[in-house]
Structures are given as structure tokens and as C-alpha cells.
């Protein structure tokens, strides 16, 4: 008993130091994270509920919200399928060009989002490589919804794959081999063995991917063309409103994005808590 108390004292800082360190951390968080978040909501409600509602129900705002959800609804599942497939291939198989594939997956993290948007304009825009062909076939990608979806997919490309690769590499492929030797098909192995083992990491990746898909500004801004009510997503709409000195409306839409961020954080914490809970149960 006494040794335990001694050890506790010897590894603990004095009360003053503890308070100081915690105080600095909290003050920093409040100043740089808490205060801006608060400001968003204060500004949004500055002129009352009625105006807040009106700003959100305005047709252009409504169309921006819808477009944001559409882009995320396409980008997230697409990257889910790709992310799982890529992580599976990288973690469980040996093949030539594996490191090249890993580098390619990281590319969207490495380049500026504006550049990623610009690349699509250069490829598919009216003056771009495939521009004439697309025009001849009456397909419009740039300054239209498909371009926004493409840019969103590109920017959120690495999130799920990056989350899964280290996890699947750590788990190895012995369980899959065991499943196959017991007579399971590839499909059965995936659904019964691989997927249950990665489900928490996968969910975590999906949450991060979704947050980024809805919040993306740079790449989408370049390909969107800012056509109100047509090709504006929520972040773009916020910028337009703000530039027009319509602070209440800008912050009202921004508050939705902030709310999304808060919800994402809560869900993320829940997932982590769940995953840890299961880990503990399995280890005891």
C-alpha cells in the first residue's frame, strides 16, 4: 500500500503545474475552436429565429443543401467500394506496382484541392483535352453537377483506404486462409471474416470521408462555376452570401455545416467507444 502511494506521488506533478498545463490546453482549445464555433451560432441567430429559418428556406440555400447531400451520397459509397477493394488488395496480396498504388491513393492528400479541381477543368472543360468530344456528345461535366461529384470523389479518395490499409495489414491474411481451407468461397470469406474484422475502422473512415465530402471547398469551387441554385454546394453558398454582406444568411448555412461537424464528432466518439468496448470484451 505504502509503495503504491509513493509511486503515485513520485510520478505526479504538483497541483500548480497540473492546473497550469490543463489551463493552457483548455484556453487554447476555447480560443481557437470553441470561440469560432460559438460565433457561428451567435451570428446566425443574431436577428432571431425567423430570419434564420428564412435564410435556410430560401430556394438557392435549399438547392445548395440538396447538392451537398447528393455529392456526398455518391462520393462516399464510391470511395467505400474503392477503399475496401484497394485496402484488401494492398494488405492481403503481393503484386507489382503496389507501392505505386499506395502513392496514388495518397495523391489527393498531397496536392492542393484547388489544383485537383483545376485538373478536371483542364481535362473536361470546354478548352480541355476531352472538351470537344464531350461537347459533341452533349455531355456537360464542368460547371455542372457531375463535375462537382467528380471533384468530391477525388478529394475524399484516400480517407477510407488509408483507414483500412494499416488495420488490414496488422490483421494479416491467416484468418482468410483459414476460412478458405474450411471451404468458404471468396465472397463468404469477405462477408463472414474480413468485413466483421474491419467494420469499426470502416465506419470511422466513412464518417471522416463524409465530413470532408460535405465540407470540401477548394476543388469544388474551381469546377462549380458558382451558378446559384444550380451548382452551388453549402460551403460555396456560404462564401457567396458572405461576399454579398448577407451575414445572417451566410452564418445560417454555415451553422448547418458546423452542426454537421458536431454530429460527426459525436458519432465518431460513439464509434470509437463502441469499438473499444468490443475490444475490451474480446480481450477479457
Amino acid at each position, binding site marked *: 500500500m505504502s509503495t503504491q502511494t509513493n509511486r503515485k506521488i513520485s510520478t505526479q506533478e504538483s497541483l500548480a503545474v497540473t492546473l497550469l498545463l490543463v489551463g493552457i490546453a483548455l484556453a487554447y482549445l476555447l480560443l481557437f475552436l470553441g470561440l469560432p464555433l460559438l460565433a457561428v451560432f451567435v451570428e446566425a441567430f443574431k436577428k432571431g429565429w425567423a430570419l434564420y429559418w428564412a435564410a435556410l428556406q430560401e430556394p438557392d440555400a435549399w438547392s445548395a443543401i440538396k447538392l451537398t447531400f447528393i455529392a456526398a451520397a455518391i462520393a462516399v459509397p464510391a470511395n467505400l467500394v474503392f477503399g475496401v477493394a484497394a485496402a484488401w488488395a494492398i494488405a492481403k496480396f503481393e503484386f507489382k506496382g503496389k507501392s505505386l498504388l499506395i502513392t496514388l491513393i495518397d495523391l489527393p492528400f498531397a496536392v492542393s484541392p484547388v489544383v485537383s479541381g483545376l485538373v478536371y477543368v483542364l481535362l473536361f472543360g470546354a478548352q480541355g483535352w476531352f472538351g470537344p468530344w464531350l461537347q459533341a456528345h452533349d455531355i456537360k461535366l464542368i460547371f455542372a453537377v457531375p463535375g462537382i461529384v467528380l471533384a468530391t470523389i477525388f478529394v475524399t479518395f484516400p480517407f477510407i483506404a488509408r483507414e483500412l490499409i494499416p488495420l488490414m495489414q496488422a490483421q494479416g491474411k*491467416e*484468418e482468410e*486462409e*483459414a*476460412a*478458405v*481451407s*474450411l*471451404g*468458404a*468461397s471468396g465472397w*463468404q470469406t469477405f462477408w*463472414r*471474416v474480413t468485413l*466483421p*474484422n474491419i467494420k469499426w475502422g470502416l465506419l470511422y473512415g466513412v464518417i471522416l470521408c463524409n465530413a470532408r465530402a460535405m465540407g470540401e471547398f477548394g476543388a469544388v469551387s474551381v469546377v462549380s462555376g458558382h451558378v446559384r441554385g444550380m451548382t452551388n454546394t453549402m460551403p460555396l453558398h456560404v462564401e457567396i452570401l458572405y461576399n454579398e454582406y448577407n451575414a445572417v444568411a451566410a452564418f445560417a448555412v454555415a451553422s448547418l455545416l458546423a452542426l454537421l461537424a458536431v454530429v460527426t464528432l459525436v458519432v465518431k466518439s460513439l464509434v470509437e467507444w463502441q469499438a473499444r468496448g468490443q475490444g475490451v*470484451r*474480446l*480481450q*477479457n
Partner: protein
Amino acid sequence: MSITIENLHKHFGAYKALDNINLEVNSGELLALLGPSGCGKTSLLRIIGGMELADSGKLLFHGEDVQQRDARERNVGFVFQHYALFRHMTVFENVAFGLRVKPKKERPNEVEIKRRVHELLCLVQLDFLHDRYPAQLSGGQRQRIALARALAVEPKILLLDEPFGALDAQVRKELRRWLRRLHDELHITSIFVTHDQEEALEVADRVVVMNKGRIEQVGTPDEVYASPATPFVYQFIGNVNLFHSRDHAPWTEQHGDAVAYVRPHDIDISRTAQDNTALPVEVKLVRAIGSVVRVEVATNGSSELIAIELSRERFDTAPLLLGDKVFIRPRQFRVFATGDQHELSAT
């Protein structure tokens, strides 16, 4: 089911993992693949199991070529070194897995699955753990669950990769006796990989000694121990003294680049030289270890020690003291040319 392997080769890049393997595994026998790490034993096991493909050569189960058959169609049970139990499933579900993934027509119903799984869990004496998760089990328990899971699909061949490698010494000894008994009950053709000679000699019907992707010797535990076919087998299984015949092996006819191999318990010690082939030595160490006495001697002017093992009885009839000058002569030895695998002579 018997297994026939003919002229099997396997490369990993420039590395030769298996070099012209020929092996016949009899139906119902328990065979050990024994060798140092990197000798190709696990590659061979994985090729038989269908987890790896050979570059060339034949692999036949009961006379039928199975190389084109997928792992899931080979009807082979595989027990992995680290067990590879499904971590998110209970013990029961782990064992039931092989039954649940069967095609609908062959899949037993829920009652039958329950009966079979409990039967297997009773066989490995762990039925009371059926609702636990793998992480809640000890190493030895996981090992036995992995075995029960592999047996659930009624394989014709059972492959075990270092089955006792990750266990502590006590559990290991118990489990290998248990495995031997289980094999005697079930009589499934079984192959297990090990780097532990004691394990191979104690458990297996026959032992395949491998080195650098080649088979050095195939034989019963007694054969590989008592009459090793190559210098490698001599050194890998049991202890051995090397006599470079040019310097100090007066009993061999052989001169030049040859080495005589002698087991420590195959050396006689006497106070007087019976003839001129005995080697004069000085006793450097005497140590009694349980029922054997270990004596180390050296020839005049040489620092190289020769190990001799005597039974305690034999030692007591003619006790030795440190510094005694005596003569030694092997009862049994074999001579191999250095740098060559060919045997030159033996007595």
C-alpha cells in the same frame, strides 16, 4: 488418403524455397517435416494445402492430381501456427464455420450443426468454453479449438504448421502427447511442421528432415537418429562429435578431407590402449546430469573438446577424475567427405 509429391520446385524471386522434392506420404500416417527455419518445410506444407502454388512438379492425393484444385476444394484441414481463429466469433461459431459455409444442399441443419460442434468440442475436451471468444482462451486452448475447427469439415488430410511453436514448454509436452493419442484414434493422414527435433522424434511415425529446400532424409524417428544419411542430419538431430580424420581419428582408414561423425554415447573410454587406433586424451570436465554423466576430453595440445556421454552405471564401474589420461575409441562412427554429402565409410 495418401499423398505423392514428385519433382516439386518452388522459387520466391531468386530464392529457392523448394528444390526437387520427392515424397510419399502413406495413408493414415503422422509425418513430421523437420528442419531449421527457412528450410522450406512450411512452403511445402502450404503447397500441399493449396495456399501456395508450386512452380513445377506433381502433387497427387490418392493418385489424383490436385494442383489445379483450389484450397477450398482439396478437403484439407489446416491448423495455422498462430491458430488464426476468427476473433469476432465465439468458440462454437469458429468450429461451426466450416459447416455453415457449405453449399445449401450439403449444409447440415441447425440441430445437426449443434450436435457436431459439441461432439468436436468434447473431443478436444473444451466443450465448457463454447461461448467464449478466442481472446479469452489460453494458447493451448486456442490450439485445440483450431484443431477442432479444422476437423469439423471431416478432412481427408490434416496439415499443422508448427502446432506447438507458440506454447510454453510444459503445455507443449502435454499437447504433443495428446495429439499423438488423437491421431491414433482418428487415423487421418497428418503432416506437421516443426523445427524441434525432440517433438518430431516423439510424435511422428516418420520424419522428413529438410535443409535448404531439399530433403536430407526420410525415415522413422529411430532411423534418422541412429543412422543419419547426411552430415546435416547428424548435426541437426542429437549431439555429435566431429573428428577431422587427418588430425585425430586414428581408427579410420580415411585420410585427406574427410570428417568422422560420432555420437557422444557411442564412445568407449579405457585406461589403457588396446591397440594403436585408440586416441589418447585428457579429461577436462566431468558432470553428472540426472541419469547420464557427461565427460569432456581433449587431445594433447588441442583445445577442441570431445563430448562423451556415459550412463551413470557405467561411469560408476570406472570413475574418472579431472586431468586423468585415458584412451577413447568410438563403437560406431561414420565418415563423410568435407564439402560433399557423400558418405565414405562407416562401421
